[in-house]
């Protein structure tokens, strides 16, 4: 393994690193908002919308991101919907992540003890007030561990973007290997690149999980 080769490839990997981070951020934020929205629809049992959410969740969770990306990037142009690669990637990540986030939020909301709901009712709270002051704050705190797992999962899923030629980390590494046969060096930098993102993030999320638990519970 040659350090010179690594050094020379660093600028292009750096670009890929920031791109991976940027696409992950958009995807995760979008997926969280979509998931939150879907879980609220489920919580309030809004007719029709609730069924649509369920169909979406089944569809999104039971198809691979790879196929979802193919659809968005290669199939949609057939019906006149041409979407740039990076946007396709973000849309794909949101489509996939939204259902995972929805399940995480819903799990948290379901986890709020029944007696909390009853004691909220007992002081005269309306359903909306109950949701706003009691169920959602507690439910969202309960869902933090699952959300954290999804965040990590979604960042790793960006490696699939390589199939629609987005120059993120994995794509860049494969490119370097393909062009210069610098297999060892490229894979080494690739691993380091993901580790730099994921390890600190994982630590932060663990800290956040502990805080959320401590902030909410303790009978």
């Amino acid at each position, binding site marked *: 393994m040659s350090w010179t080769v690594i050094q020379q490839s660093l600028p292009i990997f750096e670009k890929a690193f920031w791109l991976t981070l940027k696409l992950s951020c958009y995807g995760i934020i979008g997926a969280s908002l979509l998931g939150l929205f879907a879980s609220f629809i489920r919580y309030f049992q809004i007719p029709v919308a609730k069924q649509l959410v369920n169909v979406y969740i089944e569809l999104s969770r039971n198809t691979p991101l790879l196929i979802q990306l193919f659809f968005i990037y290669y199939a949609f142009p057939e019906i006149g919907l041409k979407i740039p690669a990076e946007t396709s990637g973000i849309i794909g990540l949101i489509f996939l992540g939204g259902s995972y986030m929805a399940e995480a939020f819903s799990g948290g909301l379901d986890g709020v003890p029944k*007696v*909390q709901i*009853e*004691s*909220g*009712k*007992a*002081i*005269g*709270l*309306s359903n909306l*007030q109950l949701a706003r*002051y*009691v169920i959602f*704050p*507690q439910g969202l*705190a309960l869902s933090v561990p699952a959300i954290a797992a999804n965040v990590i999962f979604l960042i790793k899923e960006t490696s699939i973007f390589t199939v629609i030629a987005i120059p993120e980390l994995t794509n860049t590494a494969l490119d370097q290997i393909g062009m210069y046969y610098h297999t060892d060096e490229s894979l080494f930098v690739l691993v380091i690149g993901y580790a730099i993102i994921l390890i600190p993030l994982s630590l932060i999320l663990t800290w956040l999980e502990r805080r959320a638990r401590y*902030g*909410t*519970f*303790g*009978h």
Partner: protein
Amino acid sequence: MVDTLLKVEHLNKAYGTKQVLHDINFSVTPGSVTVLLGPSGSGKSTLIRCLNGLEEFQSGQLSFEDQPIKPTPKTWQQLRQKIGMVFQSYDLFPNLTVIDNILLGPLKVQKRSKTEALKQATQLLKEVDLTDYADAFPRQLSGGQKQRIAIVRALALNPEFMLFDEVTASLDPEMVRGVLEVMLNLAKRKMTMLVVTHEMNFAQQIADNVLFLEDGAILEQTPGKQFFTQPQTDRAREFLDSMAF
């Protein structure tokens, strides 16, 4: 002032085919303390929960201040400001501080002014001896302290009627006293109360009336003093004997 605060007529409740409350009839006069006694599984909790709209029932009529209660979610939501309830488990909202727990109802449900509600809350906290804990979170409190706050939270809405469902049943023995004292003070101040409890000494002290329940039916309705010395039914006598050490 009305003669009866709460009236229960021919209340029947079943879970599926299993009848859990049989033709319950009683009324509660303002300022009185009614104690609901009976063995486990006799339907005490189910009954008290019916009176706050937390359980539905198949037939029967409830009236509050001589007004028949239409059992809809809307009616109950309104009525719960007048009928407070405290549960067995310490059910404070863990995401809110003590003072926010107490103020949630007055501010959001009753839309009262913050200054006025806070003044009342502070006074109530003083009465239960927990002034210093206003800004604490529930997890920092002991079970007995939490339960006293739960009582304050219900009182902050200025209810006319208080329901207590075995509020000391899951407390450590040494915490029980503080909670019972709060309830005794309420009784002294002529708060109308319906109390489910297994603390017999306390029941004897506080009860103006006793309803003795078994298998979902009221076996006996007797003034408090008389119930503990001369119960009318053998079953009640047996129950009292079994509770006495």
